[in-house]
């Protein structure tokens, strides 16, 4: 009897959260999937069932593939900088920099991550401005003026300029996460290695890298899924232009839904984003579970 009561009480406590999840997370996901089989917009009184037409149209649309490619580029560059470079940065901070400087540098690296993405987007739009921007002026100053261009206004450079800004903002954040992981490594390992005559590089590859494996996995997963959900920075800086060259899945979904009034297509893109991020999350779960068994 007591157990039954406890079980009911447990359910009572859990129920509000479950209800909220059902209404605000699972219902929209399922309904979004349903609506991706319809042609509809905010104004159409009756959604029209079109079967898989939206999917066929999506997969035949070069802009969709361009957006997916841009997301992938975002993920690859983010991996290099936010999982690779920031780990090196964190190791350098911990091993080579004096204690007082270390705190200051950590703060300096972290500041960009604390800034609003909209503010950063506007700030970088100024930096990239072809007439008054600092980037072209700096290139001019070092004799590389011929490399200057309308960074956000040319199809070949728009998405890369946005990606670069994103790395500037995020590298410090992941570096601080790595610093925390490195600080948890017992100092004895390094001392023993030093006694054995290991240099800094050898210690990095033989001790630091394996010991921050869990944090690396987490950052890799978060970076990749974040790259497929990117929206704000592109929206603020290029809105996907010029000529859709910097579209990512999020901004393409937005343009289809709120500019072209093609909600069925937008729901299809949303489903694709969901499938990709869900797959990444599942991979993360699988990897972390295997780790646990290994341990």
């Amino acid at each position, binding site marked *: 009897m007591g157990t039954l009561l406890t079980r009911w009480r447990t359910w009572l406590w859990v129920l509000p959260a479950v209800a909220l999840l059902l209404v*605000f997370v699972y219902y929209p996901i399922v309904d979004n999937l349903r609506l991706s089989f319809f042609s509809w917009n905010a104004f159409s*009184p009756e959604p029209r069932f079109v079967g898989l037409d939206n999917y066929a149209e999506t997969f035949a649309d070069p802009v969709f593939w361009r957006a997916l490619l841009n997301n992938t580029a975002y993920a690859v560059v983010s991996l290099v900088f936010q999982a690779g470079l920031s780990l090196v940065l964190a190791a350098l901070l911990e091993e080579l920099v004096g204690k007082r400087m270390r705190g200051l540098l950590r703060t300096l690296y972290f500041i960009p991550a604390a800034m609003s993405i909209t503010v950063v987007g506007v700030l970088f739009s100024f930096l990239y401005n072809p007439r008054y921007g600092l980037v072209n002026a700096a290139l001019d100053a070092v004799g590389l003026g011929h490399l200057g261009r309308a960074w956000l206004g040319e199809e070949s450079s728009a998405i890369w300029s946005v990606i670069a800004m994103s790395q500037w903002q995020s590298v410090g954040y992941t570096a601080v996460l790595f610093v925390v992981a490195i600080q948890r490594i017992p100092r004895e390992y390094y001392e023993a290695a030093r006694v054995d005559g290991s240099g800094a590089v050898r210690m990095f590859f033989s001790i630091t890298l394996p010991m921050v494996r869990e944090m690396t996995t987490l950052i890799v997963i978060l970076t990749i899924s974040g790259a497929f959900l990117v929206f704000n920075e592109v929206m603020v800086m290029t809105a996907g232009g010029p*000529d859709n060259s910097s579209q990512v899945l999020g901004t393409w979904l937005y343009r289809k839904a709120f500019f072209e009034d093609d909600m069925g297509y937008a729901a299809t893109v949303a489903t694709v984003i969901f499938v990709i991020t869900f797959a990444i999350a599942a991979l993360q779960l699988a990897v972390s579970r295997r780790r646990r068994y290994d341990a």
Partner: protein
Amino acid sequence: MTKPRWSALSLVTVLVAAAGCGGGSGTAPAATADLSAPKEKAGTLTMVTKFADPEYAPYFEKVVAAYEAANPKVDVKLEQVGDQPYKDKIRVLSASRDLPDIYFSWAGDFANKFVRAGLAADLTGVIGPGTPWGSTFAPAALKAFEYGGKNYGMPINLDGKYMVYNKTVLDKAGVTPPASFEDLLSACDKLKAAGVQPIAFGNQYGWAAIHYITQLNAYGVPARTLEDDYNPATGAFTDPGYVTALQRFKDLVARCGTKDANGLSHETAQAQFLAGKAGMHYVETVEFDVFTKAEPAIEWSFFRLPVPAGAAGDATALTGAPDGFLVNARSQNAGLAVDFLKFLSSKENAAAITKDIGWLSPVKDSATAGNAYPQLTDALTDIDKATSFAIWLDTVTHAEVASAYLSGVEGMLSGSRTPEQVMEGVRAAAAKAKKEVG
């Protein structure tokens, strides 16, 4: 690390939820709102505008306060949002069938979408030509909100697109305002030779180029063809005039503009013009205030984008359109909403819109030397001469077509598309739009 950002997905979620909550099975309501004057002016009116800009918002707040003071039993709940957020908000409100009593709309297919969905009240009986209220407006402005021979909107401003020029800069280069499109190109060569940017042009978000194309399409394509093509049910865009219009624009940018236009905002270009570094700038009359308030002052005037030789379209059409307000077809207070709109468009408030925020009002005889500067009254005289408004290409056409034009012209400016390729994209979008509206 790139933090997960859910903005776009959340917006769709909101919309999905909104559609689920309000629309139900979403039967199209052919609701007929009761527009007759209320016996007693009482109740709550809701209104959403896109005029949150601090320059414009106070005018609407002032009118609302004056109306409430005159009608103490009426409470007007005014909500003003920015240009882009408005596009999102109104779609969510439409999907949930939760529109306010009065809401803003651009002219063209943006407004027609509300009409087709049965969301806009038919105002012909109160504002149509020949009615006492309707006869207070410039006919071209009323016509901009006409659909299927019926009137659905009250115009709030008159907006025309003109080439503003800096007299000092042009004089120095020995250039006079051009009489034809070809003269304009020659004028650009002279200005370039004199070391100034001929036309300040920023196209970061695509619409600035579209305004040129709107005018060049009106000049280059017969009016009847244009009307058919801008209608999503009949749009084909096969007339060769469209390609010619794009080619003319390409030539104009090559000789008068800069190749980095896609990376410059309209505001940056405007700053360049205000600083005397450019000779001309293509702007809307609602922007004229900027030039009168320029520090240091500039001597400026304006002309219409000149007509190209041998153009097959309407040489007197003028790019522009009024913005307006629609009344919710399901409004329980439609009569009161009409009463408020009549108050908003009274001669006194129409004169105030010119004086306070420098807009031209569609209400006849509202701009005088007393409340407007010379350029504004000159513009009004010129707008009166226009046989019709060439409504902005990105609001007059179906959204699919508008989108194809916006991105296509960006591509043309950056050299990745030819005019023919732009039109191929537009034709494909028109075919899709045709299928959608049945």
